[in-house]
């Protein structure tokens, strides 16, 4: 499969003043193949997270389109084949749901994935407040790896993890996505990490 981002433009609504809107993205182009892991890097405030949110469908672009195999992504109903993993796992899980219910929301996430990410079974009965950020992030990654996922957007997913866990999780992710032919877009400030993980790197300037 192929994910195409075509001439994407986006500006956040400015409520104050009549001045011209500042476009955070202007005619941005990107293509990702299923077998690829594309690294994306840029300084803060250049719209990396915005781009991820646009591609995953959380925001609507002002112009341009996002195509999955030539079809607009918005035409896919139900489970979205492009899943995004958010930067802050604390905000990405409902504080009143037990972790096993959080996982159940994903699309039939296999036991194998939970084990591969180092998630212990007893964590399933806990609430998000009873887990650390790194432990929560593993659940968020697992949740995004459901059956229907074709592309994965990883927005700074490993910043809160120690190096050993980072390497453990990235090795698992690389193996899993290669095996299931899931394309990845990896956003990070960490150039070394991108060089290690990705098949090519794009600079957003």
């Amino acid at each position, binding site marked *: 499969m192929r994910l195409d981002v075509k001439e994407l433009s986006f500006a956040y609504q400015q409520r104050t003043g009549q001045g011209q809107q500042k476009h955070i993205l202007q005619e941005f182009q990107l293509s990702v193949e299923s077998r690829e892991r594309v690294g994306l890097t840029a300084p803060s405030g250049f719209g990396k997270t915005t781009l991820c949110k646009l591609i*995953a*469908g*959380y925001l609507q672009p002002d112009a341009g389109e996002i195509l999955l195999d030539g079809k607009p992504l918005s035409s896919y109903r*139900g*489970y*979205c084949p492009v*899943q*995004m993993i*958010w930067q*802050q796992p604390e*905000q*990405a*899980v*409902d504080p*009143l*749901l037990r972790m096993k*219910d959080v996982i159940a*929301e*994903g*699309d039939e996430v296999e036991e194998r994935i939970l084990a591969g990410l180092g998630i212990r079974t007893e964590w399933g009965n806990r609430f998000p407040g009873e887990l650390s950020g790194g432990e929560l992030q593993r659940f968020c990654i697992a*949740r995004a790896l*459901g059956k*229907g996922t074709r592309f994965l957007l990883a927005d700074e997913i490993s910043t809160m993890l120690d190096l050993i866990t980072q390497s453990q999780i990235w090795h698992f992710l690389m193996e899993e996505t290669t095996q299931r032919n899931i394309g990845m877009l990896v956003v990070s400030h960490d150039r070394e990490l991108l060089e290690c993980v990705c098949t090519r790197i794009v600079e957003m300037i």
Partner: protein
Amino acid sequence: MREKNNRRQRVLAGLIFSVIFLAVVCIGGILCKQEAAATDFSRKNLAPCTEYLFGTDWLGRDMFARTLRGLSVSILLGMVSAAVSAAAAFVLGVISAAMGRTADSAVSFCIDWVMGIPHILLLILISVALGKGFRGVAAGVALTHWPSLARVIRAEMIQLKESPYIQIAEKLGKRKGYLIRKHMLPHLMPQFFVGLVLLFPHAILHESSVTFLGFGLSSEQPAIGIILSESMRYLVTGQWWLAAFPGAMLVLVVILFYEIGENLRKLLSPGSAHE
């Protein structure tokens, strides 16, 4: 040993005490229906003593029994109207947030509209239009008290809708009904229950004031408002107990309801207790 009296247990104890006290008042009022109406001229105008704790009035009625009866009528009325009001607030708040912009502006307009009219005026209008009595007051209180809670629930829903975990669940292919049931309702429950309990004291006070002004319950019913307005005539002759005890009891009941609401809030959403 410190465990024995921690904050949670104190809050729980306060909550249980308030609930039991109000339940006793309610049940007592139901049991002494006969006594509250019984007149006996051999014992009229007695000051408070051990036999008649709150004294007796000019018809020789036991003021303690009348007060209990009046309070139980008030509490019952408060419960009915607060429940109806809270249900309306809940439904409207959810509709406003879940069903698009047109529904939202319609509901918001209604909220502002009802809030813009002084409570007591609207209450009197509705009560008189429905022929006073229990029904009129209940409808009046129910129809005037929903906006503040509806506004809170609407705001909460809008905030929830923007939260990442609900947006993520949406992208995971979950339907709107699922999102509301699984993600939104559990977050709304504490707000709703606390709001519901805190509506009671309002409802009771408004019921009493409307009745006091003569637009509420009929005068043969021993409501607190009736008792207070009747006793005004006898205050000048030095019968202070006719107004003092029922008035103090009304204030006590209202305070206890507030106490229940506050304690419930502390238990259901511990985070807010620090404020």
